[in-house]
């Protein structure tokens, strides 16, 4: 019997809750923020979705861009 460990569910739930508490919005709004930031930035910078990460902590919205061309 294989089941998804309850920890990964808990982790996802608490992360979604914490982010939506921090920016006072629902989890799907957070998804929208990410998508729109992504599309806005992609007009000027070339990157894939894997290079692009949005983190919201208590005081900042941090956009991490990891796509350094070598």
């Amino acid at each position, binding site marked *: 019997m294989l089941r998804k*460990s*309850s*920890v990964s569910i*808990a982790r996802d739930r*608490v992360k979604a*809750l*914490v982010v939506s*508490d921090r920016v006072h919005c629902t989890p799907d709004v957070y998804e929208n923020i990410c998508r729109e930031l992504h599309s806005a930035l992609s007009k000027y910078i070339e990157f894939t979705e894997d290079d692009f990460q949005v983190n919201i*902590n*208590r005081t900042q919205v941090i956009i991490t861009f990891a796509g350094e061309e070598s």
Partner: protein
Amino acid sequence: MGEVIVITSGKGGVGKTTTTANLGAGLSKLDKKVVVIDTDLGLRNLDVVMGLENLIVYNLVDVIEGTCRLKQALIRDKRYENLYLLPSAQTKDKTAISPGQMKKLTSELKEEFDYILLDCPAGIEQGFMNAIAGANRAIIVTTPEVSAIRDADRIIGLLEANHLNKMDLIINRIRMDMVKRGDMMTVDDVTEILSIPLIGALPDDEQVVIGTNQGEPVIGLDSKAGTAYMNICKRITGMEVPFMELQNNTGILTKLSNFFKKD
């Protein structure tokens, strides 16, 4: 000049009061002069956890209203020298005192004590605001549960908004057996989400319940939680102590398998 530390969590029932009692006892064991203050007006508990409930004459509200002198309300602990309790009032509510009055009280206590520990009520309302008013440091207690972590995150945000930036995290009631089977978040999971420095992780230890039953801090008993609390006290005073292994190796199967492993 003493340090004023508020012990807070947002959510109720995660172990603030037990933590306050044990940190108080532990710090006094380290030869520090400590006073613990129960700021939960109307729901007095810290005295019971410390086994001092029969010695209360005056309380926090009496001191603030000037019914008695500060010295008259302080109860000296039976077991630990240099440990004092300022109990809460059972018949008043949170509106009986204001943040300004708490600030004044703690600054008075700072003159005489090395550590002033404030046991904060659950919630984010006036009781919380009173408790944090005079604090220059905070310890956030949480458990590895979604609701407790979420509340802790809100508390951290509120403390930052009130310019209380010296914060440390205690993760309470960790069950290593559940962590191992992937049914409980790890210390790292919780620390990563809350992103404040970890000052201690406590195993879910029966001895804590036994200690509370007897009105005795677990720090005085031979136990994992007692050792973990003592380590936290040392870290509070600035000592560097390595984090202990939470895993319990004393189960009979582990003992047996360890026995056979030996050459």
